[in-house]
């Protein structure tokens, strides 16, 4: 099962601790998470269901290629990490 982890702030703000899902792509894993937490969807995706501009997703430590459709493939034990841009200096 692929594991989906959000940065600590997103977890605290949106109540999304690490979860494991059966999923073949990043989009599928996120959909499973959104099924359980609707607030999460609007924070991660825009109204066209594309990744928001201030969010980045990494699979097994590598940045995903497809920000529009999130079609990047997952291995059975992949680790997905979701983070947001920080502006504080």
């Amino acid at each position: 099962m692929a594991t989906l982890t959000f940065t600590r702030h997103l977890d605290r703000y949106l109540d999304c601790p690490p979860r494991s899902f059966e999923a073949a792509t990043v989009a599928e894993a996120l959909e499973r998470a959104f099924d359980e937490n609707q607030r999460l969807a609007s924070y991660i995706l825009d109204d066209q269901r594309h990744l928001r501009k201030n969010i980045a997703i990494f699979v097994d430590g590598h940045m995903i290629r497809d920000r529009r459709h999130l079609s990047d493939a997952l291995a059975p034990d992949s680790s997905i990490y979701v983070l947001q841009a920080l502006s504080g200096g």
Partner: protein
Amino acid sequence: MLSDEQLLRYSRQIMLPEVEIEGQEAWLNARVLIVGLGGLGSPVAMYLAAAGVGSLVLVDDDDVDLSNLQRQIVHHSGRIGRPKVESARETLAALNPDIAIQTLCERLSPQRLEELVETVDLVVDCCDNFATRFAINRACFRHGRPLVSGAAIRLEGQVAVYDPRQPDSPCYQCLYREGEEEGLTCSESGVLSPLVGIIGSVQAMEALKVLANIGRPLVGRLQLLDAHSMDWRTLKLKKDPQCSVCSQVG
């Protein structure tokens, strides 16, 4: 040619085989732009000044406020109400009178930023807003100047190096896209003071490495710190072939 005083002042880094006289001369001859003299800019400016980066350009349009002093360690209580760049200049000049410091107390227009970036060897982004972050990234890639980018808030930090001189280097805009709403600031969300010290110190280290061509800088890698657990995570960045900024280069 280093003076006897310089040889003594910088002796503990010159003795490193990675540095030697050649590295120190690279730093003394370098001109670095630091955008933002707040939490990140404080340690960046202090370490680069102390290490002998010969010319620093400091940009910030803000004045020192009491609420800054918990983390912005280049300033102190006697400087409240004064421009941050002037406060920083005084601290840095006392730290190392050997270096030249130029100060600009203004919010740079994109055009002004472009002009300034062209005059430096490296840029350190320590600013507090996304519009400036994207503008700095564009200017650096247009003029082929390496960018050391850091951000920190609450107990989370991010740091990376983007180097347009390397054809496969991604840029800040490969990671995040421009146009999303503004992020939270430290004044809204809070920040634990050593966090900016840690991230700013990593930025200073990376700047020195890039300037003297030492080791393996954080090009193509994003370093994340979760200070809550003190976990560091290294994520691999990719150049976006569609990127409107860096796909024009290389």
